[in-house]
């Protein structure tokens, strides 16, 4: 750790640093060098990757000294780096989606296996195929300077092997959810980049699913989604990640909202792995709404971090965040909600709530609201609770003949259900509810 601090300090003064302090960081550099020649993209993309790995080399993996990773110290927790998967895998949609999702979802799924697209769907292009002739908006997105801020994102830019390119035309109303499912073999790392553009007035539901079923071996994955939503569009954006012990999943969503947009992300994390769900939202147009929900169920030594940065750059926008987690064993959940209200962003209405239900004395919940308000006519609030199951409610249920275990189950489910209820699509809500229920009884 000492070495890491020294290195980044030198790097900060503009020196080129080739040596990194941790074994994992060195392995990432080596993985890049080994794969650089075959990673998809022409000269421009190669240059982008080279710049990203250079920046990564100077920053290293984020440690707890980086505020956004205060509770999710990647430098300390990522000990080994698995070899980068660059394709060659197979999977069908039903397998990739896993239990609880019916054929309706499979029919609308684009599937990635071992880092490469294997099942296409009309309207979705594989990024690896598109790179040679990528439209300007995709090229611009890939080069977005916002993504050079954090080394977990630099890592994705350097290593991504594929991803979905989704361009929803202005005014289009996509009735069925568009599902992006990713799966991978054990013992490998994958890096996917999804680039999504939603045209003015369009309506769509986009679902990202990455599940390692019970009994899976160790996997590592990075998934970065950039979504640009034009004026008046309504987007529901859902993520489900299920990880097993020893696995690592680094996810980040970068959302740019136009005016009068409704953006409703919902993220669910279950399992025992080490998961980071970053989400940055930029309000670029007025009268837009960001309505975020998250549910996580942690067991064993599971670690689930949801860190949001909501940037109110313009007036008259609304942000809502509801984060709920149930923690058992030694599981840990992190919620960081940073809300920035720029000086001209008057009439901003921001609220956040983070709640944990603690089933074990060894579980840990770290909740950190960060409100940076530079405008004076705004309404911003935050709240956070961590509690055990209310014994009075258990008594109320048992006094009606409901056995204690059933009563506790019902109360836990209702706690997490309040977040899942934010999902309006019935089929999705039910599937997510069942997945939460199953992981609660796991």
């Amino acid at each position: 750790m000492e070495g890491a601090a020294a290195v980044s300090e030198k790097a900060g003064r503009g020196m080129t640093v080739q040596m990194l302090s941790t074994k994992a960081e060195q392995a990432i550099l080596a993985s890049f060098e080994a794969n650089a020649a075959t990673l998809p993209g022409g000269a421009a993309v190669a240059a982008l990757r080279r710049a990203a790995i250079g920046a990564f080399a100077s920053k290293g993996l984020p440690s707890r000294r980086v505020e956004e990773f205060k509770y999710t110290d990647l430098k300390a927790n990522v000990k080994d780096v698995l070899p980068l998967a660059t394709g060659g895998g197979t999977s069908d949609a039903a397998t990739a989606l896993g239990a609880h999702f019916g054929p309706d979802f499979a029919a609308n799924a684009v599937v990635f296996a071992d880092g490469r697209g294997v099942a296409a769907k009309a309207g979705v292009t594989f990024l690896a195929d598109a790179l040679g002739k990528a439209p300007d908006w995709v090229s611009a997105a890939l080069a977005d300077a916002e993504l050079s801020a954090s080394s977990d994102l630099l890592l994705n830019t350097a290593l991504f092997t594929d991803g979905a390119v989704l361009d929803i035309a202005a005014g289009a109303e996509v009735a069925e959810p568009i599902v992006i499912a990713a799966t991978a073999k054990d013992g490998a790392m994958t890096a996917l980049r999804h680039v999504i553009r939603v045209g003015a007035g369009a309506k769509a539901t986009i679902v990202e699913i990455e599940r390692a079923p019970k009994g899976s071996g160790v996997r590592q994955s990075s998934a970065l989604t950039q979504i640009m939503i034009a004026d008046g569009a309504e987007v529901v954006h859902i993520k489900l990640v299920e990880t097993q012990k020893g696995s690592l999943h680094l996810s980040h969503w970068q959302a740019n909202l136009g005016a009068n947009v409704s953006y409703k992300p919902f993220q669910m994390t279950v399992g025992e792995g080490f998961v980071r769900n970053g989400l940055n939202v930029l309000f670029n147009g007025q009268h837009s709404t960001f309505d975020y929900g998250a549910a996580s169920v942690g067991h064993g030594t599971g670690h689930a971090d949801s860190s949001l940065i909501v940037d109110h750059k313009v007036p008259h926008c609304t942000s809502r965040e509801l984060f709920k987690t149930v923690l058992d064993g030694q599981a840990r959940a992190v919620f960081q909600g940073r809300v920035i209200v720029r000086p001209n962003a008057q009439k901003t209405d921001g609220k956040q709530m983070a709640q944990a239900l603690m089933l074990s004395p060894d579980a840990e919940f770290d909740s950190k609201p960060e409100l940076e308000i530079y405008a004076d006519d705004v309404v911003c609030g935050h709240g956070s609770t961590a509690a055990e199951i209310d014994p009075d409610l258990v008594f109320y249920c048992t006094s009606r003949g409901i056995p204690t275990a059933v009563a506790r189950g019902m109360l836990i489910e209702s706690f997490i259900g309040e977040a899942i209820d934010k999902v309006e699509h019935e089929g999705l809500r039910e599937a997510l509810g069942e997945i939460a229920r199953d992981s609660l009884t796991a």
Partner: protein
Amino acid sequence: MLEIKNLHVKLADEDKVILKGLTLSVPKGEVHAIMGPNGSGKSTLAYVLAGREGYEVTDGDILWNGESIIEMEPDERAAKGVFLAFQYPMEIPGVAGLTFLRTATNAVRKKRELPEMTTPEFMKFVKEKAAKLNIDFEMLKRPVNVGFSGGEKKRSEILQMAMLEPTLCVLDETDSGLDIDALKVVSDGVNALRGPDRAMLVITHYQRLLNHIVPDKVHVLADGRIQKTGGKELALELEKSGYAEFTGKAA
């Protein structure tokens, strides 16, 4: 028959003794009222009958149909027919009323070795009972008691009581927070459940409720003991004279 014998109860976490030798019997088919000043132990008695944690029975016993229930868990007592209508019914966010009722009804039926109700059977049963209590069926799709008015919560309690078909009904201050119309609906609901196989214990501070649910006997509880027992006319006397006589005796 409910037999409470020389019941001594203290708070589990403190030295505070609340019931100090309470003895009382309620035969099947009868409705008994317990009246008493604030702090006399009325709610404690209700909770101890239902099996709430936090109370310790240091002496005495509670027999229901000849069987001691003090070691039983609340759900076992419910299966044996014990039902407590709460003074302050609890709100359960996220659990729909119908789900709660169905889970409870079938849990109790299962323990009573009755077949579980199918969905259509259950729906028919609940609709019937809800209509009698003027409960809007749509209300039952909402989370249990969340956002309900005082009157709605009490009607919801009586609906649960009607659904679970208990044989020992304990009503704790069921009249509190009710306006006169709601009081009538709730009382009619309770009276409809009166029957030869059912014993009822109606706990109240005021006589008002007993105009609607007319008791066979009235007991005065003060300082943790039954101080006086009489007919329904005792309630009217208390309304005039207050509890001073008994609290004086207690002091």
